[in-house]
């Protein structure tokens, strides 16, 4: 009856498979976050440091919605509607912060959005226990379990599948948007706001649109994340997460879709692999947070536009092949 029943998802997972599914799910989430931040920072060339705020809004929006309607609705529609609701909440948040702030210059916008992200976290932390759970967090009814119970599909495998379907959809949507008239208008505004304005493009509308769309995707990531985790706490959505998302975008190359997913995989894999190691695993594990930051600084110094720049990995591959072919014919 659902997508899950058509897919071979009913796999028995060993502990190893368990770990891998967890990694892959997080890769999907961070890819969604990275792709949406990429829309703001890579394509629209605005500088947002508040993406973790929209992520949190989505997660809490979905959690709240699910709690409210749990028991009144079957699992699948509730899951879908909570996702839509979460996107709506994050989009409204994006609109509220975007409208006044998007006219700010680059670094001022960064600070304003950072302030916004922190306000969201503090607000959740101080929320009444019965509304959003306060600092203790919020338990989300596992509505997806309704599905997995019926179909015998593994919960994690299903979530990974959902995650990657969403990543593919988002990538496809961004690609199409960039090639549409609206998207090109956005790129024009990013290049030169004044010149674009003279061409009759409304720069504010173009920016707000990109910002709201990106917020909605971050909200969606939050919703799926909340359903997967089962319990969410405000501290998960801290500024370090923002830096992580940013690192993924920069590592993958500002404006590169495949680079973003690749970078998300790299980062999450290393992080989870280190987490698996015993506590006394040594220098690399202890200093991982330091290395994170160091990588970011080194990247900015040596490759401020990302490892591959704005190119897709397929382009890089093609260029490399061309180079090799040239070398071979020269030899």
């Amino acid at each position, binding site marked *: 009856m659902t997508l899950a029943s058509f897919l071979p998802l009913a796999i028995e997972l060993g502990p190893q498979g368990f770990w891998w599914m967890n990694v892959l799910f997080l890769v999907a989430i961070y890819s969604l976050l990275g792709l949406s931040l990429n829309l703001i920072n890579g394509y629209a060339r605005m500088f947002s440091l508040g993406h973790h705020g929209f992520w949190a809004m989505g997660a809490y929006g979905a959690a709240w919605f699910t709690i409210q309607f749990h028991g009144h609705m079957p699992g699948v529609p509730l899951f879908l509607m909570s996702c839509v609701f979460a996107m709506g909440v994050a989009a409204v948040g994006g609109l509220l*912060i975007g409208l006044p702030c998007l006219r*700010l210059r680059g*670094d001022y916008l960064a*600070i304003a959005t950072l*302030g916004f992200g922190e306000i969201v976290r503090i607000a959740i932390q*101080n929320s009444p226990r019965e509304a959003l759970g306060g600092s203790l967090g919020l338990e989300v009814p596992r509505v997806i379990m309704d599905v997995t119970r019926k179909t015998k599909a593994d919960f994690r495998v299903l979530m990974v599948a959902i995650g990657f379907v969403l990543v593919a959809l988002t990538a496809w949507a961004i690609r199409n948007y960039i090639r549409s008239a609206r998207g090109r208008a956005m790129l024009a505004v990013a290049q030169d706001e004044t010149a674009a304005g003279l061409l009759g493009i409304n720069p504010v509308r173009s920016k707000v649109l990109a910002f709201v769309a990106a917020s909605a995707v971050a909200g969606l990531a939050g919703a799926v994340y909340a359903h997967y985790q089962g319990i969410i706490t405000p501290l998960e959505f801290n500024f370090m997460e923002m*830096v992580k998302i*940013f690192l993924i975008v920069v590592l993958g190359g500002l404006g590169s879709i495949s680079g973003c997913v690749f970078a998300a995989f790299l980062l999450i894999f290393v992080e989870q692999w280190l987490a698996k190691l015993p506590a006394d695993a040594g220098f690399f594990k202890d200093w991982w947070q330091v290395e994170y930051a160091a990588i*970011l*600084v080194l990247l900015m110094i040596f490759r401020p536009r990302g490892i591959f720049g704005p190119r897709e990995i397929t382009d890089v591959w093609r260029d490399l092949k061309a180079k090799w072919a040239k070398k071979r014919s020269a030899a």
Partner: protein
Amino acid sequence: MFFDYLMNGLGLGAIFAFIALGYTMVYGIIKLINFAHGEFFMVGAYVGYFCLRDLDIERVGLPQPLPILLDFFVALWAASLVAGLLAVLTERVAYRPVRKAGRIAALLTAVGVSLLLQNIAVQVWGANPRSFPDPRVFHALDDLEGEAQANYYADREFTTTQGETVTEAVLLISQGDVLDATKRASIEDQGFDEVYERVTLSPKSVQYFVILALIGWTPILWFLVKRTRMGKAMRAASEDADAARLMGININLVVALTFFVGAFVAGVGGVAYIATYGKVEPMLGFLPGLKAFVAAVIGGIGSIPGAIIGGLILGVAEAIIPFVLQEVFGWEEAFAWKDAIAFAFLIVVLVVKPTGLLGKPMREKV
């Protein structure tokens, strides 16, 4: 009551001002929001902490309150110098290479440096907060007579089951004990001929000192920037770097010096912070750093008097607004929201008056 909150606010505001000064100076000259500035403040606070903990100037035997003042004097200089040198190093290694790569790259580098310093601090000094040690006043055992006026302690070293050597304070004489020959002999038997009492600094007197320090620093900075050759070069370079180079001004040197002075003052703020709040931790710089940036924006970024006024306004607002919300409007949790209030304040200022109170309108360089 209200006056207490006002004093709290001014004390906090003075600390914000100390941090905001560096933010504003650096922004003025290279248009970089130096995110890592809060970490210079944090490192300053740690250096101050170690000085106050380990200097042991009390043992020299000077009359009170000279040892405490000397402690702070040394701590201030050490904290400021270390913070300043760290800033110069950071600028040279991380910021200078990206200065031409655009402001976004520079800001992201700054975010990275900030995290890097935080996490190095976690690795080196541990993630747990450390409490600021109360200053001690030493007394020779023979000088104490009659009824004890305070609790007296001595440090004893012992070895833990893990084989570590730990120093621990032992309470030898409680307040009210009668110090007769037997008491004295029993202490001497334990191997001590001097004991100390702990002096708790009253938060209020510390706040006065912090505010006084700010008042003391203001004319120094004013003189430095307005009157000295280097200060004029700084102002010239912040307005037009190319024109400044045509005068023979070495921009790199001026930028390094700006970082040094800014972080030096943040170091003062760091010592003021531990003296006021009594503890240090690696994440200490993040929030005050952000708020100091808010303060710099309120005052008008690039303006030195603006940073001081902005810092004081923000400090007072942070103390008074939740107080008013709680007392007048009956909102019980107002204090838990004070950080959110500060950030909301930031967004409003950025949107409504991005040039701040004393800032000049920004000229976009084409």
